[in-house]
């Protein structure tokens, strides 16, 4: 009996020896794996600045309460307890419950955010009685510029549930990624690198203490834009409640000084989690606030295309700058009659006057002798149909129609009548405000300017743009015509400038949205006045221009959707925007650099 006992004790001893000496290393490792948990530290996101260092996107401390459904046996009582501390509306509560059902159980659900310190501490004190509840003093994104820059910066949102495995960072509570705009495009640059810290946890995963060493997160890079926030805000105020887009470009280095789209929306609302009501309102607004009209909106360029048509004709030798045609208000081609906007016609006029007065018949007549492919080629040289990748979402290439396009898309031959329509900026041709601004910039500077919005990007340091390969005399003729647009007899003369203001050169455009039928033309009273039409059927008002005329520094394009006439609506807007933009050059630092570009 005693022997048996001895054997048994020896057995126990041997077993213990085996565990704690022979296999000790293995078990030490497993004990560490039990207690040490490596946790990620979310990096601080880089900020976004305008050209003057004004903050467009920054991070603010955000006190949050989160729930990890997996860590609580019963969500209901936990939520009820939280509700007694934090004010949660019933609507929010049902929202939370829906999320809990939809998401996987380990994904934290944000219960409340933007808490004050007092409430936050009250939750922290109660935490031992709140299974599954975590608090987080993290950072959230703030856009001080609000709706003036919503279309550019975009906004942040939680990663999609399907993406949650793509990066361990995505599983951090409250972690958000850029969902739209520059935030999305420059996600990698802005995000920074995650750090790690080793924490000792107990069996239920609660942190006990941190174990050194800690690897700090690396802050994301800042993003510097070429945008001038003050100008951008001014432009937004000018556009007001209209559905409109406007672009202001610097002519020296292609810097986009303003890239506005109206109406805007508040990106902060998206960061916080937009309510369904507000989201539906944004979606249903006929003025499409979610679309960035300055790069996504595609419009018939209207008469603003006439400089391109003129240049194409001049370069092809179809006309000379002094060539004259007679306008009697209409032009016949086969069985079709093409009308000039001025029913009584312009009489005899040369190219400069044809542009200044925006005579349509003059352009029908030269277009009749032109090949659409030559027009398309010239349009492309001025940036139409091109995507510039300035960094914001939804840049569209527009449409520069040619024979091949017609053949491929419609499987039809190109008709001469279509060339005539293109010549006055109607027909199939479509352009974005950004493209029109680039076009104007290239006309004014005679260089192949490309726009840039992000200043971080690698750029030729001397900002040198190649000259346009176009006869300077032809360019000069067109620019002269654009100056004349603003003078007496020009379509935009009604904007009287004060003596002190810089001289503008520009071109108005009015793009028809509907077809005007022969019957309507012939009926008493003629064409229905634009103001009497429903909003959606009214004409788009366009204006492109540059200033100062004798020493161009900036180019502008303005489009007011269904705004009416280019002269009456778009041109005055452009005038005030240009005046404001030129003020920027009164600052000595900028002026110095602009002088070189004014060749």
């Amino acid at each position, binding site marked *: 009996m005693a022997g048996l006992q001895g054997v048994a*004790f020896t057995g*126990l001893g041997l077993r*213990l020896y085996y565990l*704690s000496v022979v296999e000790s290393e293995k*078990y030490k490792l497993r004990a*560490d794996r039990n*207690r040490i948990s490596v946790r990620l530290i979310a990096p601080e996101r880089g900020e976004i600045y305008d050209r003057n260092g004004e903050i467009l996107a920054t991070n603010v401390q955000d006190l949050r309460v989160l729930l990890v459904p997996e860590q609580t046996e019963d969500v209901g009582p936990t939520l009820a307890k939280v509700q007694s501390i934090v004010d949660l509306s019933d609507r929010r509560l049902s929202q939370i419950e829906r999320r809990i059902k939809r998401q996987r159980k380990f994904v934290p659900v944000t219960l409340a955010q933007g808490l004050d310190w007092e409430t936050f501490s009250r939750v922290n004190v109660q935490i031992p009685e709140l299974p599954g509840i975590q608090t987080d003093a993290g950072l959230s994104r703030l856009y001080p510029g609000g709706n003036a820059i919503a279309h550019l910066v975009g906004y942040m949102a939680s990663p999609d549930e399907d993406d949650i495995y793509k990066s361990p960072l995505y599983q951090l509570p409250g972690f958000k990624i850029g969902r739209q705009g520059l935030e999305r495009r420059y996600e990698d640059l802005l995000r920074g690198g995650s750090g790690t810290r080793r924490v000792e946890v107990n069996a239920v995963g609660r942190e006990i203490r941190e174990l050194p060493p800690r690897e700090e997160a690396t802050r994301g890079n800042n993003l510097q834009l070429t945008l001038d926030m003050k100008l951008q805000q001014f432009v937004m105020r000018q556009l007001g409640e209209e559905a409109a887009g406007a672009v202001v470009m610097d002519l020296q280095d292609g810097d986009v000084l303003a890239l506005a789209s109206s109406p805007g929306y508040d990106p902060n609302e998206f960061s916080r989690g937009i309510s369904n009501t507000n989201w539906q309102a944004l979606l249903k607004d006929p003025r499409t606030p979610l679309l960035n009209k300055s790069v996504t909106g595609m419009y018939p360029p209207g008469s603003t295309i006439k400089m391109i048509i003129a240049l194409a004709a001049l370069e092809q030798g179809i006309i000379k700058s002094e060539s004259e045609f007679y306008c009697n208000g209409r032009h016949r081609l086969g069985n079709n009659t093409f009308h000039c906007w001025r029913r009584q016609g312009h009489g005899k006029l040369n190219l400069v006057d044809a542009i200044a007065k925006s005579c349509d018949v003059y352009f029908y007549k030269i277009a009749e002798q032109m090949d659409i492919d030559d027009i398309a080629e010239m349009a492309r040289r001025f940036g139409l149909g091109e995507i510039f990748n300035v960094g914001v979402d939804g840049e569209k290439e527009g449409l520069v129609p040619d024979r091949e396009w017609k053949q491929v898309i419609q499987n039809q031959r190109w008709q001469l009548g279509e060339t005539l329509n293109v010549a006055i900026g109607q027909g199939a041709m479509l352009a974005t405000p950004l493209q029109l601004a680039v076009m104007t910039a290239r006309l004014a500077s005679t260089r192949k300017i490309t726009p840039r919005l992000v200043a971080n990007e690698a750029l030729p340091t001397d900002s040198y743009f190649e000259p346009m390969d176009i006869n300077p005399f032809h360019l000069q003729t067109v620019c002269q015509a654009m100056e004349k647009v603003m003078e007496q007899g020009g379509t935009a003369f009604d904007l009287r400038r004060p003596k002190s203001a810089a001289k503008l050169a520009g071109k108005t455009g009015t793009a028809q949205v509907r077809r005007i039928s022969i019957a309507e033309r012939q009926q008493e009273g003629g064409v229905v006045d634009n103001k009497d039409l429903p909003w959606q059927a009214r004409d788009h008002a366009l204006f492109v221009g540059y200033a100062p005329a004798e020493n161009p520094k900036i180019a502008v394009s303005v489009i007011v959707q269904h705004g009416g006439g280019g002269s009456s609506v778009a041109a005055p807007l452009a005038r005030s925007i240009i005046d404001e933009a030129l003020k920027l050059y009164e600052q000595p630092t900028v002026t110095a650099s602009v002088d070189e570009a004014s060749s």
Partner: protein
Amino acid sequence: MSVSSSMFASRRVQQTVLQRIIGQNWGIVLAMVMLASAGFAMLYSVAGGTWEPWAAQQMIRFSVALVLMLAIAVIDIRYWVAAAYPAWFLGVLLLILVEVNGATGMGGQRWLDIGFMRLQPSELTKIATIMALARYYHGRNHTQSRSLRSLFVPIILLVIPFVLVVRQPDLGTSLMIIAGGVAVIFLAGAPAWLFAISGIGIAAAIPIGWQFMRPYQQDRVLTFLNPEADPLGAGYQITQSKIALGSGGMTGKGFMEGTQSHLNFLPEMKTDFIFTVLVEEFGLVGAGIVLALYAIVLMYGLLMGIGCRNQFGRLLASGLSISLFLYVLINVGMVMGLMPVVGVPLPLISYGGSAMLTWMIAYGLILSVATHRHMTIAPKGSGII
């Protein structure tokens, strides 16, 4: 281990109570105090460095139990002979009482509340059964003990408490009752082949017994056979325990430094898995000391049994020693993953009164045997009552 015979009065004359107290083997008592102290230290550690709520109460319990043990030790062994059968009947009666209580809607209850502590009748029965068996074989000569007919009463004495405890359900304790009882029968001289046959019979009965086991009991056996199969479920306890034992290494992580225990990875730290806490913090060295102390105390009990001149004392001391030994073996084996998790505490060290009381009462009886080992007792009775 040497037991100094000089410490025992070898005279046949009646000793006074004082003489008997002084005559105890204080070395053995000291070993038990050391074991209990190891328990206090671990309870202090598990509580995060405070005496409350466990260590202090455990010290009070141990003090009371120590006095009780010494009291039992000095009582004339003939009283225990006389008390053997009544104790057994009392134990069985209490078991039935618990059973009836359970039947009247108290749930699977194993204990009776007797005010200052909860009394587990199964624990007392464990001792009483050995006492009764020792009493039965006392006064029977070797030939009588070998006869099959003489097995009838011992089997009755064993089976009744076994069945009652199994029904509680408490498989662990019921098997320990059987094991202790069988040891006594074996020591009494029952033929060896009987045990061989019984062994075969039990092996054959395992599949049948499996059918009668509760699902949680089946789980425990399966988990024991393969703890890694379900590391987060049923095997969690044993896996975490092994990690704690192994990671302690040779000298342990240090007092109050056990990560597995202090971060709550270990289950049932203050009761069933307290040995694990000890090994994690004091390593193989600490474990070796504790096991050695147990071995000394238990060996002493066995030796006292073997050296006893009367049959009752011989069987009682040996039987109880084996029973207590099983207690330790099962607990330590369990936390090392050598046995299924049966929920047996480590006597003297684990928090709780029941196991401590069982141990101290049993050891009191062993010491009583030691005190009276030169006494001869009349075969048919105690000669006192």
